[in-house]
């Protein structure tokens, strides 16, 4: 199963990446460690993401990242907390995805910050973002404040290691339940015969075309025959 990690840390090394790697390792172990998680470092794509906003389409490098995320069986998304929310770069990446790209996909959300006071960013900003994208988010979201790297839990909460384990187990469980036995292409439902009698293979390309053009990713398979469409907009008398 394909596990993809999106991480929006900016420094090198970054505690956001550190958290992402710990989560990825824990989830991969639960999944049997069959395949290495793919990591998408948004810092490396910052210029490409800005470019996609300006031009309206992702270039080849960004497209590869979008394809990886869209085709994943499970996603780990980690952001630093900036100004009371996810970082702008993190949000921008999800803005260039097709809004349906994550529908039904298991996602583990996580964030890092200098103080535990920002931990509800996960529940008040991250979770609604992924709810809008119709992703299936694990009940446990993982927040790592600076102090978490040096201590265990307390009387009121588990330590970071325990929370990572719990979240990873939830993600692995969701992935096993939602992914079919054989690996599936991302847009398998779209390859139908909607082009009608003449429908040839060349337009069943929702899964073979360039994924991730924000506006350009038209579903060419879902063409309503013209007369049907014309009839549907005719005023009823």
């Amino acid at each position, binding site marked *: 199963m394909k596990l993809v990690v999106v991480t929006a840390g900016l420094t090198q090394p970054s505690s956001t990446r550190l958290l992402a790697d710990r989560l990825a390792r824990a989830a991969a172990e639960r999944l049997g460690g069959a395949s290495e998680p793919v990591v998408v470092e948004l810092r490396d794509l910052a210029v490409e993401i800005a470019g996609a906003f300006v*031009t309206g389409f992702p270039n*080849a490098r960004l497209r590869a990242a979008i394809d990886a995320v869209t085709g994943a069986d499970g996603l780990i998304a980690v952001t630093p907390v900036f100004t009371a929310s996810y970082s702008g770069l993190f949000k921008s990446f999800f803005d260039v995805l097709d809004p349906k790209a994550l529908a039904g996909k298991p996602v583990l959300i996580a964030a890092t910050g200098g103080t535990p006071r920002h931990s509800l960013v996960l529940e008040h900003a991250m979770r609604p973002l992924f709810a809008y994208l119709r992703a299936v988010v694990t009940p446990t979201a993982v927040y790592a404040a600076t102090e978490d790297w040096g201590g265990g839990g307390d009387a009121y909460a588990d330590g970071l290691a325990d929370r990572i384990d719990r979240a990873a187990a939830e993600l692995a469980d969701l992935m096993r339940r939602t992914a079919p036995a054989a690996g599936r292409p991302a847009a398998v439902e779209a390859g139908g015969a909607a082009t009608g009698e003449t429908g040839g293979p060349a337009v069943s390309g929702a899964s073979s075309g*360039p994924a991730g053009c924000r*506006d*350009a990713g*038209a579903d060419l398979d879902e063409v309503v025959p013209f007369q049907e469409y014309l009839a549907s907009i005719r*005023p009823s008398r």
Partner: protein
Amino acid sequence: MQFGIFSVGDVTMDPTTGRTPTEGERIKAIMRIALKAEEVGLDVFATGEHHNPPFVPSSPTTMLGYIAAKTERLVLSTATTLITTNDPVKIAEDYAMLQHLADGRVDLMMGRGNTGPVYPWFGQDIRQGIPLAVENYALLHKLWREDVVDWEGRFRTPLQGFTSTPRPLDGVPPFVWHGSIRSPEIAEQAAYYGDGFFANNIFWPKEHFVRLITLYRQRYAHYGHGTPEQAIVGLGGQVFMREKSQDAIREFRPYFDNAPVYGHGPSLEDFMAETPLTVGSPQQVIDRTLQFREYFGDYQRQLFLMDHAGLPLKTVLEQLDLLGEEVVPVLRKEFAIGRPAGVPDAPTHASRLAAARAKDAPVDDALEKEVNR
């Protein structure tokens, strides 16, 4: 195959001088550019239609009527005519009138327009963009083909016993292209009517347009207008040339970097790699344009965007000299090689009149000759 230019009609500051032309200067410059297109042997000039600054062409038939009076051969077209927010009755009247004045050298390209506020300014709702395009065009199609029209739809006041005047020249409506950059519904619409389909092919990677055109070709065949290869396809393109490619890149870069549509984003080199934009020598433009056929199949019309992003008139006219003298003659020759016999040329008034008369009176050689003259 037809070659021509299309103009968006933006009034943009020249980033190298800081000077912005007045609307009057820009309008006259567009007219000069259109006349130049005929002088250098191009076939088509098409103007955009916009109803907001910084664009000037709000009244395309006025512009095209002026050009018609000053040209002999040039086909006058649009890129695009807003089928969503214009009254289809007025489109029917305006373009039939233009057709008479221009002796049939007129076709149109329908588009929805992508400027949100234009819809409410004209009393429409952008969320109804596709239904508007479909219903309005269905009415326009009828108005040009039926002398007396009774009609009722969702978006426009009903018509009883209405005749759009003047009737189309020789009873042959202008040929219509449908332009779309993202909607399969519009490719389907073009296929249904047997109209042309135009992919602007400028701002996005070619793969996207390949999918739309493939869909259009298949549906064109589905509706019985011919084989997929016989569907009528037009493509945009965007070039800047100098004899030496380094000179072209050096001169165009500030215009690219500051262009309203894609400026302040990716580098010129990245954008050239990702989209059909070509900045270089005439030979590079020839090579790149010839590749379009490999992706999209043999097609009927190639339009280039040449006057935008604040390029001064003098530069644009020089570009047109290069296009007309060095590029298009080679493209005409090369595109003709290996073009299958069944692939038609772009429809013209003469060819459509001949087809209409052939249908009514199968044998009339004298007339055919006269029409094809």
